[in-house]
Structure formats: structure tokens, C-alpha cells
């Protein structure tokens, strides 16, 4: 042991030896443990016996009573065999620079991971620019052409990607164009009056339409149409960052609410349903459920209402859905800049379990 190590050992032992013996009420602790065990059983009974349930889209959903939010309390995070299987979402280890995805281990240097439409995208910093690659079945492919991709690509329900790419035309103020994958080659679309303006691709819906905000304006482009269409009926001024991808549609933040919306074939924006939230959550693969952590609760919202479960720990955030009923949350400690725990929560059973062999420490998870 080094000199410093020996000093540490000596000092820590000296501190500990001077503490004395604490008073511990063992019987009281046992009683507290029995109350905790009983509370978990009561919570499970409440869920089974008192809540109204419906089947919606194949998912068992707890309806709110009288329009109020149904917040049947579940037990604190605990270990359950069914929920504690290893993580299935992608994650990246800086220690060995390996991307773990779908059972494969792929060497890659990464600065961000995004899970879009069932596909994993990895961002890398190359010469001051950000490049994106798709990772499919262990193979990697660069997204885009020669221009730098601005922001993160988005994917539609068919997995087709859309992104904004800085034009590489020399000697000009390069406008950003947006492209969609077309059998791998990508096709671009831009307008002269967009030169110099900020463009962000925010969603990709069915019919291969992408939605792009241009300085707060919402535009849609059907791949089969020669030019994009200005979206009408969108609520107020949609600032960049207030419109986001949602599988099969688009999401927006309006007046402190998360809005699930669609752009109709005629270019009109219409709201399907909305819920409380700040946009830090994640959508299920079908875009019909939204999960977000707030105030030590995991809330899962659908158009039928919201159910929630209390969480035992602070600093948790949703990092993704692993099935149509399972949400994964991670504990991110800002001080350590590290992940200190990963849990899988069931939106049906309203309980969570700590994921076995979860990546901890300075790892990258989707959205982190």
C-alpha cells in the first residue's frame, strides 16, 4: 500500500475508533421492517381490487376515477425476478469504448446514444463536428452525406431516418437542408428563403412526412410531394425545442403540458390528447404512452388518463421503453456525472425492480 493509502487507512480507523457505540433499537427496527412488508402487501391489494381497468390497445390500463388522477401507491423499488433481467436498451462504456446493444458488443467511440424507432444511433465527435451512425445488427453506417448533421436524426414508424444537414456548397452561406433516407442514398429538400435560418427536423410520421421547424414555423414534407407544406393550426409560436418526435405523430410542449398531436394530410395540426409534463420523458414505441419522472414519481400517461408510482430515489429520469409496458429509469448523479442505478418499471403492475448487472458509473444511456 502506498504511503497515502496507509495514511488513509490509519486516519479512517482513528475516526471510527473514536465514535463509540450507537444506540440501536433492534426490536424497533424489526417492527419497522414488518410495517414495511405489510405496506407492500396492502398496496398490491389496492391495485388488484379497487381500480377500474380496461384493455386499451392490448395494454391493461388503470382508468382515473371521476376524471381525477388515479395514483394507486405501489411499494418502493424492490427486486423482482421478472423485472430485474439485464438491461436491453443500448448503453456505452467509456472504459472499454464498447457499445452494448441487442446482445452485441461493438467497439465505438461515442458522445451520445439515441434510440429512435427501435434503432440505435450513436453520435461521435470528429474534428469538431458531430457525426451520426446507425447501429443495426452489429454493423455501423454513417448517416447523411458530407455535410455536418445538425441536431439528432429522427425516425418514423417505418424506421426511416430524417435529419438536417448543413449544405457543403463552397463559398456560400450554407443553408441547412433536410434529408430522408431513401434506400440509403438520402434525398434533400430546401427552400431559398430558408437560407440563414435555423432548421430542426423534429418528427417523422407515416407517409414518410417529416416535420421541420424553421425558426418556430412547422413544415411538413411528404416524400412523394415536390415541396414542403406549411403546417397550420399549430398552437402559438412553436420555439425550437418545443416540438419533438413521437412515434406515429409529433409531440409538443404547450403551456407546461405535453401534447400528443398529428399533422393531417391537409397540413393541419391537431391535438389528440395531452398530459402534465416538461418533456423530459419518453414515448412508447407506438406513441400512445408517455412516461416521465417528476417529484419522485413515475407517471405513465395515455389518452385514457395517467397512472403513477412513487419512486424511492432522487435523480431518476426515464431513458426509454423496453416493451409496451416496461419503462426504464436511470439515476443520474450530476455531482459524479455518473449513473448510479437502473430500474425497470412496469406500467401495468405499477412496480419497479433494479436491473441486474446494470451499467453504473460513467456510462452512456439513451438520452444521457
Amino acid at each position, binding site marked *: 500500500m*502506498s*504511503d*497515502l*493509502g496507509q*495514511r*488513509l*487507512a490509519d*486516519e*479512517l*480507523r*482513528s*475516526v*471510527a475508533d473514536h*465514535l463509540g*457505540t*450507537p444506540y*440501536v433499537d*433492534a*426490536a424497533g*427496527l*424489526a417492527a*419497522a*421492517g*414488518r410495517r*414495511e*412488508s*405489510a405496506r*407492500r*402487501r396492502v398496496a398490491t391489494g389496492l391495485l388488484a381490487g379497487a381500480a377500474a381497468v380496461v384493455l386499451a390497445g392490448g395494454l391493461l390500463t388503470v382508468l382515473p376515477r371521476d376524471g381525477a388522477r388515479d395514483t394507486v401507491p405501489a411499494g418502493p423499488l*424492490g427486486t423482482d425476478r421478472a423485472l430485474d433481467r439485464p438491461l436491453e436498451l443500448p448503453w456505452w*462504456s*467509456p*472504459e*472499454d469504448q464498447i457499445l452494448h446493444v441487442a446482445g452485441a458488443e461493438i467497439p465505438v467511440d461515442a*458522445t*451520445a446514444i439515441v434510440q429512435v424507432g427501435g434503432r440505435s444511433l450513436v453520435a461521435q465527435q470528429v474534428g469538431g463536428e458531430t457525426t451520426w451512425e446507425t447501429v443495426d445488427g452489429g454493423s455501423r453506417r454513417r448517416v447523411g452525406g458530407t455535410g455536418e448533421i445538425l441536431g439528432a436524426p429522427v425516425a418514423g414508424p417505418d424506421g426511416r431516418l430524417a435529419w438536417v444537414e448543413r449544405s457543403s456548397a463552397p463559398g456560400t452561406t450554407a443553408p441547412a437542408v433536410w434529408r430522408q433516407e431513401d434506400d440509403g442514398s438520402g434525398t434533400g429538400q430546401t427552400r431559398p428563403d430558408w437560407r440563414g435560418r435555423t432548421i430542426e427536423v423534429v418528427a417523422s410520421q407515416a407517409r414518410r412526412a417529416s416535420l421541420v421547424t424553421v425558426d418556430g414555423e412547422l413544415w411538413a414534407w411528404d416524400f412523394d410531394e415536390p415541396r414542403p407544406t406549411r403546417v397550420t393550426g399549430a398552437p402559438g409560436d412553436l420555439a425550437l425545442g418545443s416540438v419533438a418526435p413521437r412515434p406515429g405523430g409529433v409531440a409538443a410542449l404547450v403551456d407546461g403540458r405535453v401534447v400528443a398531436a398529428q399533422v393531417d394530410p391537409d397540413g393541419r395540426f391537431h391535438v389528440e390528447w395531452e398530459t402534465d409534463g416538461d418533456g*423530459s420523458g419518453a414515448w412508447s414505441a407506438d406513441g400512445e404512452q408517455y412516461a416521465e419522472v417528476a417529484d419522485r414519481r413515475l407517471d405513465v400517461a395515455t389518452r385514457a388518463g395517467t397512472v403513477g408510482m412513487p419512486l424511492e*430515489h*432522487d*435523480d431518476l*429520469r426515464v431513458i426509454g421503453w423496453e416493451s409496451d409496458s416496461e419503462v426504464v429509469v436511470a*439515476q443520474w*448523479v*450530476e*455531482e*459524479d*456525472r*455518473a449513473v*448510479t*442505478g437502473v430500474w425497470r418499471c412496469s406500467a401495468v403492475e405499477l412496480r419497479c425492480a433494479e436491473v441486474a*448487472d*446494470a451499467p*453504473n*458509473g*460513467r456510462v*452512456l444511456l439513451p*438520452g*444521457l
Partner: protein
Amino acid sequence: MTTDVPVDETGSYEEFVAARSASLFRTAYLLTGSRPDAEDLLQVALVKVYAGWRRVSKAASPEAYARRTLVNAFVSSRRPARFTRERLVHSPPDAAVRDPDPDDRLALWPLVAALPPRQRAVVVLRFYEGLSEREIAETLRIAPGTVKSTASAALAALRLTIGEQS
């Protein structure tokens, strides 16, 4: 499914608490740096141990289980001042520490208490509990390489502050 611990096994739990709480309390104090916080942490951990006592009592080392529960309850209980999305960086932030008094016999203790939670846990487990790198990895459920890098970062921070050669 959780069930009540039978009366005879409750007795063994109380015996375990009586025999091990002092040792666990010392670890809790070295982690938290505060007596009240250490008492709270110890209570949280021992209640969790009770909930799993039927299984824990049959384990090779119930004390090791209790220590794991204690340390992980500490690491996961941190409350930051602000909840933001941050991009990961490759080197840990320097810990803010006060200048140690060279005449202070306990010069390192205030610096250890100022380390981030994960680094503090690794230091306590390694230099007070005497655990190996593998045992620390199992306790904190992290990779052995992460234990090594975390310990290195902690020692580097301490050395930087006390002015020793690394």
C-alpha cells in the same frame, strides 16, 4: 412476495443487529461524515435487511449483505442542487476542499468527507474495510475497472490537495 419473518428468526435478526450495528455504524459515519446522517443511513439499511432476512440469514455473510445494502443506500440517496441533462466528460470534476492544517493529525479526513459519494464509498471500502477491488466491485455493482479508476481519481484529488507527488 414479502412475508413476515417468523418469531424465531426475528430473534436471530435482533441478535445480528446487536452484534453488527456498531461496525456498520462506523462505516455509515465514514460515508456520511455526520452522526445523525449515519444513524439514519444505518436505520434505512437495517430495515431493508429485515425485509430480506429469511434469505439474508442463510447467506454466507449476512454482514457483507448488510454492508452492501448500507453503501448502496448511501450512494443512491444523494440529492443534487439541480437536475439537468449533462453531457458526460472523461475526467471527474475536482472536489472542492479546504486547505488542510499540516499540524492536524486528521488532515485527510476532511478531504475524504468532501469527495463525491462514489469516490468516498470506494475509499472507505478499500482503506477502512480493507476490501479487494473485486469485492468493492461486487458491493457497488460496478466493473472492477471502474473501481480502479474511481480510486485513482479519489487519490489524485487527495494528493493534489495535500501537495504530494502522484
